[in-house]
Structure formats: structure tokens, C-alpha cells
């Protein structure tokens, strides 16, 4: 009487196309926004924006934001926030600067020490959140202030009164690790391409794009690793579970505390990485580095489809979220719009991009 089901062909499932399957993935939702923003600037911005040089130009800030955004995304998927990462950029920058300039340590020591400092602060954040059961929003907010203040005090102490510590570029100039954290990669390739005439050159004959800024490579690497961890490792499963419902996760045997503390340490280390890259790149650090970056990181993660309530999101989404944010902030300078309207456009474009993402995904998955 009942229709016996065959496992392979279930009459309770409609067939769906590959596009539909792909678009269902949270990772890919944010692509719609990138496309929309690209089209918008394609018609409104100066063509310089989409030359190789122009792309590198907006990708560099996007990459620095993105590294933070992906870490923030992992933490948000795990159900917590870290509002202290912006201040951590300043703090870790200060530590790093002092280590290489004042103490003259080589990078091979300075970088691990900086990371260790950051991880320790992250662990403290996490431990307080777990011990007290307070929302991480308020705990890390306290550290937002504390670390920002500590950077100022520290900088003044080590420079004898200024808020800027400089001389980093000279201090690391000869270090064999420097090329990993600053400058451009594949310089030879680009020079060769310039000689072939494939890449535009400056008047002096050097290519307009001397290579791919290493921060972009770090950005891509972080995205790939984070995606792999989230989707293909037990740790990823634990992160989703912890953020989805910490009691259910804990009852099922997920080591919720360990997951959360690790995530806090991870975001702090991501902030330290950004600090190291920017400090070496600019050659200096100051007390206002990373100001408001905590919010931009959360914005990137949310544009990329992370839920603020935890348990849902993706690293690739945050990747595209950071690119959207970077494109919009830098892109408007390429247009002829009155720059007073900058924030209005920024807000409008962000809204459009996420609404568009959302509309496409709903249409494709047939929700509602």
C-alpha cells in the first residue's frame, strides 16, 4: 500500500540544478554582492580602478581587514564576539615595535613573542568569559579600552613622550623573514611581465604593480586554512556546535571551553599578524592603529553571511565581505561623486549588496 522508498530515488525530493546547490552554500552568498558592487563601479568609477594596479590598491586594505574579518567570523560562528581586536592591533604593534626597535630582536624572535603576548591576552579574554559567564561583548569591550590605553602608555614610555614609534623599517631591513611579512611577492614575475608589455610600467620603466602585496597572500592563505578547518576537521564541527547551542554541544561531548578559548586566542593572533604586517609596511606604529577595526571586522563577517547569534557562517563569506567593504570604501574615491556623500554611499552600497545577496539566495533556494 505504501510506496516503498528507494534510497537513491526518493519521490519526496524534487531535482535541483547544480547552480541551486552551489548558491545554497553560505560561502557563495556574498559573491552576489561582489558582482553587484563591481558592476556599479564599472559604470561609475574611473577605469583606473580595474587596472591591475587599481585592484591591488583596493585589495590591500581589504586584505588587512579580511584577516581580522575571518578570525572574527570563526569566533562569531563559535558564538562569541571580540571587540578588542582593533585595540589589539595597536597593542601588538607596540609590543612588536618595541621588540625590534628598542630591544633589537630579530624577527624570528620578535614575531613569536608578539604572537605569544597576543594569544595570552586572548586567553585571558576567553577565560574571563567562560569563568564569569558574562557576555563576551562586555568583557572584550573592557579590553578594547584597556589595550588601547595600554598602547598609549607603552608607546609614550618607550619613545620618551611621543605616540608614534618609528624606525621599524630600518630595524628589520636585513632580516631574512622580512619578505614574508612586507613588500610584494613575485616581483621577478611582474618585472618580466612588464618587460613583455603585459603589465603597464611607470615612466621609470618599473612596473606599476611591483608584485602581489604579501598581505593579500596572507589573506588568501588565512581564508583557505579557515575554510578547511571549518568544513573538514573535527575542530570545525566543534566550532559550529559551540556557537549553535553551547549546552547541547557540551552535552554531546564537545569541549566547549577549550573551543572558545582557542578561538579567542586565534582572533588575538590574527590581530597581531595584521599588526606585524602593517607595522613593517609603514615602518612605524602609533596609538591609534586599528581604530574601529573590530567593528569593520564584524561587518565583513556579517556581510559574508555570519549570524550574530552564532552557529552559522563561513570563512569564504567573510573573505568576500571584506572585499566588498574594501571595494566600496576605496572605490568611491575613483568616482566623480562629491566626497561629502561618501558615508551615504558607503551605507547605501552595503545595504544594496547584502539585500542583493539575500534576494538571490532566497530566489535560488526557494525559501518562503
Amino acid at each position, binding site marked *: 500500500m505504501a510506496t516503498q522508498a528507494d534510497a537513491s530515488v526518493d519521490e519526496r525530493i524534487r531535482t535541483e540544478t547544480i547552480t541551486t546547490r552551489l548558491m545554497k552554500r553560505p560561502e557563495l552568498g556574498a559573491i552576489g554582492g561582489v558582482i553587484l558592487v563591481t558592476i556599479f563601479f564599472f559604470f561609475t*568609477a*574611473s577605469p*583606473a*580602478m580595474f587596472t591591475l*594596479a*587599481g585592484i591591488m*590598491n*583596493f585589495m*590591500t*586594505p581589504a586584505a*588587512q581587514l579580511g584577516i581580522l574579518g575571518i578570525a572574527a567570523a570563526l569566533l562569531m560562528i563559535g558564538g562569541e564576539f571580540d571587540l578588542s581586536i582593533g585595540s589589539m592591533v595597536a597593542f601588538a604593534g607596540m609590543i612588536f615595535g618595541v621588540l625590534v626597535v628598542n630591544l633589537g630582536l630579530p624577527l624570528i624572535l620578535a614575531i613569536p613573542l608578539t604572537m605569544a603576548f597576543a594569544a595570552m591576552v586572548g586567553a585571558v579574554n576567553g577565560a574571563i568569559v567562560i569563568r564569569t559567564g558574562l557576555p563576551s561583548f562586555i568583557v572584550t569591550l573592557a579590553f578594547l579600552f584597556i589595550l*588601547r590605553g595600554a*598602547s*598609549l602608555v607603552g608607546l*609614550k614610555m618607550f*619613545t*620618551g*613622550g*611621543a*605616540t*608614534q614609534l*618609528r624606525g621599524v623599517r630600518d630595524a628589520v631591513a636585513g632580516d631574512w623573514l622580512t619578505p614574508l611579512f612586507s613588500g610584494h611577492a613575485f616581483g621577478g614575475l611582474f618585472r618580466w611581465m612588464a618587460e613583455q608589455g603585459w603589465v603597464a610600467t*611607470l*615612466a*621609470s620603466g*618599473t612596473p*606599476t604593480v611591483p608584485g602581489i602585496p604579501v598581505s593579500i597572500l596572507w589573506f588568501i592563505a588565512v581564508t583557505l586554512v579557515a575554510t578547511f578547518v571549518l568544513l573538514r576537521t573535527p575542530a570545525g564541527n566543534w566550532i559550529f556546535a559551540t556557537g549553535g547551542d553551547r549546552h547541547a554541544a557540551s552535552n554531546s561531548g564537545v569541549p566547549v571551553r577549550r573551543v572558545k578559548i582557542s578561538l579567542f586566542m586565534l582572533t588575538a593572533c590574527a590581530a597581531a599578524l595584521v599588526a606585524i604586517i*602593517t607595522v613593517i*609596511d*609603514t*615602518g*612605524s606604529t*602609533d*596609538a*591609534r*592603529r*586599528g*581604530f*574601529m*577595526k573590530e567593528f569593520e571586522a564584524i561587518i565583513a563577517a556579517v556581510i559574508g553571511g555570519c549570524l550574530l547569534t552564532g552557529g552559522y557562517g563561513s570563512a569564504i563569506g567573510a573573505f568576500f565581505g571584506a572585499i566588498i567593504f574594501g571595494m566600496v*570604501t*576605496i*572605490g568611491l*574615491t*575613483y*568616482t566623480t561623486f562629491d*566626497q*561629502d556623500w*561618501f*558615508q551615504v554611499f558607503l551605507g547605501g552600497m552595503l545595504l544594496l549588496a547584502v539585500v542583493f545577496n539575500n534576494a538571490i539566495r532566497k530566489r535560488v533556494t526557494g525559501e518562503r
Partner: protein
Amino acid sequence: QNIIVVAHGQANDPFWSVVKNGAAMAGEHTGATVDFRAPEIFDMVAMGQLIEAAVNQQPDGIVVSIPDADALGPSIRRAVEAGIPVISMNAGADVAAEMGALLHVGQSEFDAGVTAGERLAEMGGTKAICVNQEVGNVSLDQRCAGFAEGFGNPVQVIPTQNDPTEVQSRVRAALESDPEVDTVLGLGASLVGEPAVAAVEALGRDDVLIASFDLSAGFLEAVSDGRAAFAIDQQQYLQGYLPVVFLALHAEYGLMPGGDVPSGPNLVTQDAAGLVIDLSAQGIR
């Protein structure tokens, strides 16, 4: 003696940290206790409340900056009413006297902007961008407005956030999208001036004039190398130092100079830059 300084710029702002250093040094020199207070963000409402808090403590003198006379007027008048001597600094030269301040130490942001504009126009600038890292902060807006007036040629204001990487990208974008732009004025040396120099270098252009308000060691280096035109120095150390000294002397001997003290503007150009780099790195200039 006890002297309270209420400023509208934060202690971690490179410009204001110099003011604060000046005030602290004056405290050391005169033996007065100096407290430096500022709201955490440019916020006139909060600043008014800080002045009120200062009045409540009945100090021997209050030093204030007055970026918005309407908003801060009542609080300053209350200080005067309470018999506390007030000296204004940095912003508010035009209104200081009518508020009851004894004198003003500083320089009008607008005038400084005009000076910079005139100088850059003289040096051959024809089209400029004014990079403002905090649009809506009235003193910064005035710098751009003064610059536009002094420059006489088209000026575009580029708003940015507090991030050197972003500033560099945006300056570069502005230069690329409009190749006619040949002048860049930054409103802060470390946050805008240095990245602007980097952006221009990355573009391989050597015809762009770069100037910046305030000093930073890195930017001064660029000036002394000839990569940047000049830095506009208000000698804001004086804005912190002098009022405190005046108030201390006033409290002790009843002394007070007879008029306002202009602390700037002072353009730091290639020949002078090398001399001030070290002072700047110590937070004195």
C-alpha cells in the same frame, strides 16, 4: 597650585599628546599640579561636561580649547562666574575674550589653512585634495576650509578613516582617477602625511606637492629629503606649556600678559626639517 586643562582632542592623538607633554612640562617647571582632560572622541556635549567637572573641583586655573563657542560657552562662563581664571588655547581665538577668558594661546586653524594654501599655490599647485581623517571635527574642517580659500584653485576634500593603509589606498585612488591633482594636503602628519608620501611614490609621480599639518618624524624626514613640501607646525607644545605657566604665575603673583599669544603658524620646510626630527620623535614638536 592645581591647574586643569580641558581639550577637545584625545591624549592618543599625536597632535594633542604634544600639547599634553607641554602642559606636563610646565607643571614640572612651575611646581603646579596639571591635569589634562579630554573626551574620548570629538564630542562637544561631553567636553562641556568635562569643563563643568573641572569647575566643581575649584582649581586655580582652567585651560580650555574652544572649537564650538555655543556649546562650551555656558560651561566656560560658569567657570568665570565661579572666579576661576580661564585661558583658552588652540581653538577659539575669536571668542575667547567675550567668554571671559583672560587670553588665548594658539593659532586659528582657518588661518593656518590659508597660509598652507597660499604657499602651495605659490609652489605651483593647481588642483588639490585635502585628506581629512575625521570629517565633522570642526577644527579639522576649518583647516580644509582655510586651505581651500588660500589655495584659490579647486580643492576636493577626501574623507578617510583612522587607518594608514586605507589612507594610502585612497590617496592613490584619488590621484589615479584624476591625474590633474598635483597637490595633497594632509590634516595629520603620521596618519595622512606619511601614507600620502608612500602613495605618491608607489605611483612613481614626482610632480605632486605634499604638505601636512602637524609634525611626525617620518614626515619630517620626507620633507628634508625633498619628497614632501613642508609641514605646518603650530608649535602646539606652547599651547600646553604657556597657559599653564601663565596661570601658575597668576595664582602666585597675579601676573598675566596683556594680550593673546600666537603660537604659529610655522612652516617647516626642507632646510629646517632635519633639525626638528628628533624633537618630534620625543613628542615635543
